[in-house]
């Protein structure tokens, strides 16, 4: 039966414009048997058998060319299914040399599918590509260009570059277009090798063919991304092209679902977004066309929304304009309030758009809080993640607790490691930036480490240790020690957990070693005991052991320094013994160091391991001054004095040069000092010595510019925290309004923020804000109370405890009627049937496929409901036949089913099922047939022909699978 269907299909298609013609029976058999395979294992067996037979036959001498083509197509098929067909690559390469175009195309297709651009066989194709690029037949040239895109690598670009450049002026527009794209690919592979040809892209922008112009936008987009400033002159041209496209000046063939050339519009908008970014003048040229687009874009179709979304992106990127911002905000809220049927895609886009717009105006999030919370609660993971991204962007110190808590809950619930790591690092970032209290900070970090400890970057752990050691940059020692003891408390508690990530254990060991006994709450023996337990209870690696033994060493040293006696616990002794015999030399050394330390007196121990000195800089005596006495004595005793290498070689003159070098070096260090001086008033004093001593100083910047730099630097880099924050994780603060700063510099910071507010000029002032944000990283916590009242209110209403509850209620209330209406209007038919036909997997869920396409006007002639009535019975009786039904119906189902609205699709499914068993529905399908044939319009003859041939072999529409003949597109 299955076979008959296939034959029928085969014949039917064979009569239709040769689409199915020219394939061997063997190939059809192979594909068919794969299609019928019930499991992956069976499929693998079939393919492996096929590969074996092909390996044999392809190597036979004098394989006819047509047959070879067939073999190669079968190899492509095998490779597509994930099997290795490398033995056939060389034959595919040979086939590209063939003179006949069909064979050559097959060869090119196979090599582009088989080979990556680093394959050794590429070199054998270069010559053919070169030859084909010069062919008179433009189809040959096209095939060669397509292959060149995929196969030519950096080394081989020069071999074909001249020909490709020549083809930019080819009379056929298709060739020009492909040549542009090939050149673009070359640019991506190796920008240097085509950098001299970039002007060609500008030229092609004026091509008479819109297709070539559209293709040229791809390379131009890349080029402009690299270097915006060289293309500012094109802003007007791009804007005018966009205007013309929007006004339907392009040929009708470029229309897509009633939109004029939307793909070109999108590309142009992307380019304009780049060019207008932070450039008031360039942006001004775009405003008009953008507002036109906002007006014209119809939001009923998917493609219209795609263009609209790109407009929003463009508005959020260019120099802000109030009117356009309003339009963008309006469009965004339309996305967010999208009607329920296909809302998810639009909501997703809306959330993304919102994330872009709040960079410019943080307040607009407020009116969409309901929609945002709605998306956060959504069962769709994709939407949820997008919403977390938005929340991340709008986190403030007032809502950080709620947001991070949500993130951690989500973090615990997923098992996608890639995303887990991502969201964990975001949690850490937000916690460091906005933590409301030390307690909270430590708890949050503990949770993150507990659940994603092995995924977060080790830098995060080091950062945490540093934070605990340094405190939050506050002068208040009490708060710091409180932070430390709360950390110690929580770690001692957490150590009871059965399984902890190694990175987290490292942090715990370090903190316990450094601060375990600091506040006197716990005895040294207790902490040491805990540390020994760590290494026993958790299967830990050498790194954790090293952290543990170092921690024990610190505690012992503190004890000895305080004059107390250290008693060696038995478990500690055995741990020590284990490490002294370890394979790791590092562990051994640490163990021996500890043993040596135990013998020291209190003063020495205190010097070796000073208390709470992890933040102190280790002073290195580069001149080894403490050895001077020793050297002096040795020389007195008759030892040879040390000579530098240069002197030993007899080049004593060199030493004369050393003094200017030294001077230069010292001026360097002086210069660093100047940068760090915070008060502008002191600047004029400092350069004076430079000027007087600058005879040898070649590096010194001319004074005037130096002043200016100095001025800026002193404003921007504030205090030592700046560098420490910089060394940590990169803080993404763009778009987050800065409210905090050191009181001393409040004037400068307030200027930045006020400017930002008045002009919305985040872009323009980005530099200032960014560098400013660095210094406020740690200060933010201290300055919390300064958060403006209005912001707090917004956050409270967004995510505050009381507000969120009412919001949720509201959402629920909103949701309920939504659900009802959906049921009522759409799927009640499907739902009511589904118990009976639930085994019928062929019914495509209509909503997924329906992207808001206009409902087809041609209504079905048969009443779907009647058919459904007849269907339920036979369908359940068909249970055992399910498998055959499924594969048969499944494959033959027209892919364009999505064009049908719900009722027709149900009716079609019912037909495919009913055809197996019931007569009554068969009849209806049969009666429908002529109508379909008539509907086919230009294909009428084909359809009739198809029908006739099929009947000859006994496959009739009343027979096995009427779906094979069904033309759904109408």
């Amino acid at each position, binding site marked *: 039966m299955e076979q008959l269907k296939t034959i029928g299909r085969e014949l039917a298609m064979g009569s239709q414009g040769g689409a199915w013609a020219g394939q061997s029976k063997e190939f059809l058999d192979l*594909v068919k048997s794969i299609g019928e395979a019930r499991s992956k294992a069976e499929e693998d067996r079939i393919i492996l058998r096929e590969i074996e037979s092909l390996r044999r036959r392809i190597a036979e001498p004098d394989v006819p060319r047509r047959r070879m083509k067939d073999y190669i197509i079968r190899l*492509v098929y095998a490779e597509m299914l994930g099997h290795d067909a490398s033995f056939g690559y060389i034959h595919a390469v040979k086939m590209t040399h063939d003179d006949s175009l069909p064979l050559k195309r097959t060869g090119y297709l196979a090599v582009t599918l088989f080979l990556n651009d680093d394959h050794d066989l590429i070199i054998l194709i270069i010559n053919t590509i070169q030859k084909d690029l010069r062919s008179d037949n433009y189809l040959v040239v096209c095939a060669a260009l397509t292959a060149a895109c995929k196969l030519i690598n950096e080394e081989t670009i020069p071999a074909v570059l001249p020909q490709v450049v020549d083809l930019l002026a080819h009379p056929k527009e298709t060739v020009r277009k492909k040549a542009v794209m090939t050149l673009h690919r070359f640019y991506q592979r190796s920008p240097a090798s085509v950098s001299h040809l970039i002007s060609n892209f500008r030229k092609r922008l004026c091509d008479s063919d819109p297709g070539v112009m559209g293709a040229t936008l791809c390379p131009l987009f890349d080029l402009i991304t690299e270097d915006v400033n060289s293309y500012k002159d094109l802003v007007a041209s791009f804007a005018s092209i966009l205007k013309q496209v929007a006004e339907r000046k392009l040929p009708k063939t470029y229309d897509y679902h009633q939109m004029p050339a939307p793909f070109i519009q999108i590309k142009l908008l992307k380019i304009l977004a780049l060019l207008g970014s932070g450039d008031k003048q360039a942006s001004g040229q775009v405003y008009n066309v953008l507002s036109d687009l906002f007006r014209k874009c119809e939001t009923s179709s998917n493609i219209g*929304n795609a263009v609209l979304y790109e407009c929003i992106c463009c508005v959020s990127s260019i120099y802000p304009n109030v009117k356009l911002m309003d339009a963008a905000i309006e469009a965004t809220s339309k996305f967010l309030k999208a009607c329920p049927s296909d809302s998810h895609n639009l909501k997703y886009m809306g959330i993304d758009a919102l994330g872009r717009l709040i960079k410019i105006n943080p307040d607009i999030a407020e009116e969409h809080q309901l929609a945002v919370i709605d998306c956060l609660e959504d069962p769709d993971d994709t939407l949820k993640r997008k919403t977390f991204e938005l929340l991340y962007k709008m986190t403030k110190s007032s809502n950080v607790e709620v947001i991070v808590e949500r993130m951690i809950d989500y973090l615990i619930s997923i098992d996608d490691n890639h*995303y887990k790591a991502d969201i964990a690092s975001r949690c850490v970032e937000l916690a460091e930036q906005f933590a409301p209290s030390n307690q909270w900070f430590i708890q949050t970090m503990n949770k993150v480490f507990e659940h994603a400890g092995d995924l977060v970057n080790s830098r995060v752990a080091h950062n945490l240790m540093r934070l605990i050691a340094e405190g939050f940059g506050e002068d208040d020692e009490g708060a710091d020690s409180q932070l430390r003891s709360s950390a110690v408390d929580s770690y001692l508690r957490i150590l009871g957990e059965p399984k902890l990530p190694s990175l987290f254990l490292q942090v715990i060991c370090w903190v316990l070693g450094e601060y375990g006994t600091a506040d006197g709450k716990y005895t040294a023996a207790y902490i040491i005991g805990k540390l020994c337990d760590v290494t026993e209870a958790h299967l830990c690696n050498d790194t954790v052991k090293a952290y543990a033994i170092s921690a024990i060493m610190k505690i012992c040293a503190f004890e000895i320094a305080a004059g107390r006696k250290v008693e060696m616990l038995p478990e500690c002794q055995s741990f020590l013994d284990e490490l002294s015999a370890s394979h790791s030399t590092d562990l051994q050394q640490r163990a021996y160091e500890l043993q040596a330390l135990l013998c020291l007196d209190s003063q020495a121990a205190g010097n070796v391991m000073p208390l709470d000195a992890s933040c102190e800089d280790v002073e290195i005596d580069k001149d080894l001054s403490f050895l001077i006495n020793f050297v002096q004595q040795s020389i007195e005793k008759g030892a040879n004095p040390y000579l530098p290498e240069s002197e030993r070689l007899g080049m004593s003159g060199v030493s004369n040069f050393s003094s200017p070098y030294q001077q230069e070096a010292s001026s360097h260090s002086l210069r660093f000092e100047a940068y760090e001086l915070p008060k502008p008033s002191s600047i004029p004093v400092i350069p004076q010595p430079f000027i007087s001593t600058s005879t040898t100083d070649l590096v010194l910047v001319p004074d005037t510019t130096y002043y200016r730099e100095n001025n800026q630097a002193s404003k921007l880099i504030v205090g030592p925290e700046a560098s420490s924050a910089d060394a940590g994780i990169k803080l993404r603060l763009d778009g987050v309004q800065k409210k905090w700063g050191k009181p001393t510099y409040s004037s400068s910071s307030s200027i930045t923020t006020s400017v930002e507010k008045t002009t919305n000029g985040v872009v323009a002032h980005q530099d200032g804000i960014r560098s400013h944000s660095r210094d406020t990283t740690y200060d933010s916590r201290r300055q919390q109370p300064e958060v403006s009242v209005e912001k707090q209110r917004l956050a409270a209403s967004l995510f505050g405890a009381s507000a969120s509850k009412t919001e949720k209620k509201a959402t629920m209330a909103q949701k309920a009627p939504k659900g009802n209406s959906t049921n009522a209007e759409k799927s009640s038919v499907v739902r009511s049937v589904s118990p009976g036909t639930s085994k019928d997997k062929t019914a495509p869920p209509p909503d997924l496929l329906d992207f808001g396409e206009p409902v087809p006007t041609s209504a079905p002639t048969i009443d779907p409901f009647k058919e459904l009535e007849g269907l339920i019975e036979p369908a359940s009786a068909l249970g055992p036949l399910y498998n055959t039904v499924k594969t048969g119906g499944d494959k033959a189902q*027209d892919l364009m089913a999505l064009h049908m609205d719900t009722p027709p699709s149900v009716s079609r499914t019912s037909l495919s099922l009913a055809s197996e068993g019931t007569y009554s529905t068969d009849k209806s399908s049969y009666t429908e047939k002529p109508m379909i044939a008539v509907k086919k319009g230009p294909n009428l003859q084909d359809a009739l022909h198809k029908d006739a041939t099929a009947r000859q072999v006994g496959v009739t529409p009343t027979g096995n699978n009427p779906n094979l003949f069904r033309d759904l597109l109408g």
Partner: protein
Amino acid sequence: MIHFVILLSRQGKVRLTKWYSPYQQKERATVIRELSGLILSRGPKLCNFVEWKGYKVVYRRYASLYFCMCIDQDDNELEILEIIHHFVEILDRYFGSVCELDLIFNFHKAYYILDEILIAGELQESSKKTVARLIAAQDTMVETAKEEAGSISNMISQAM
């Protein structure tokens, strides 16, 4: 940029793959396995996008066939969704109401069509008519080649 195009059946069978960024055979298998697990399990009414390893995968289901395209973070998902539809419409025009079976038996034709729509991971032609004209021109070449071959074999048989 589009990194790859994969056509999957509902049972997770691969119907077409096209890789615009370099992937080794092993990586390809992993990608397909991961994505089919990710996409086929998604219920209806959800987004047509999935975030995956720092990329985004846009998919759309037609009857029992999933068309998936992998794109960069900053690409426009809705646009890709329409590129998929553009591709399907052209397939439909070429095969005359395309169905999965057409693509199974003519996957190389589908490749040729895809090559006219996408090149190097970018959309190269947004006019259906232009694509159709080119494919038709290529098919005519095939036909003439066949006829020539036929006439030669006729001559040979006559001569014998």
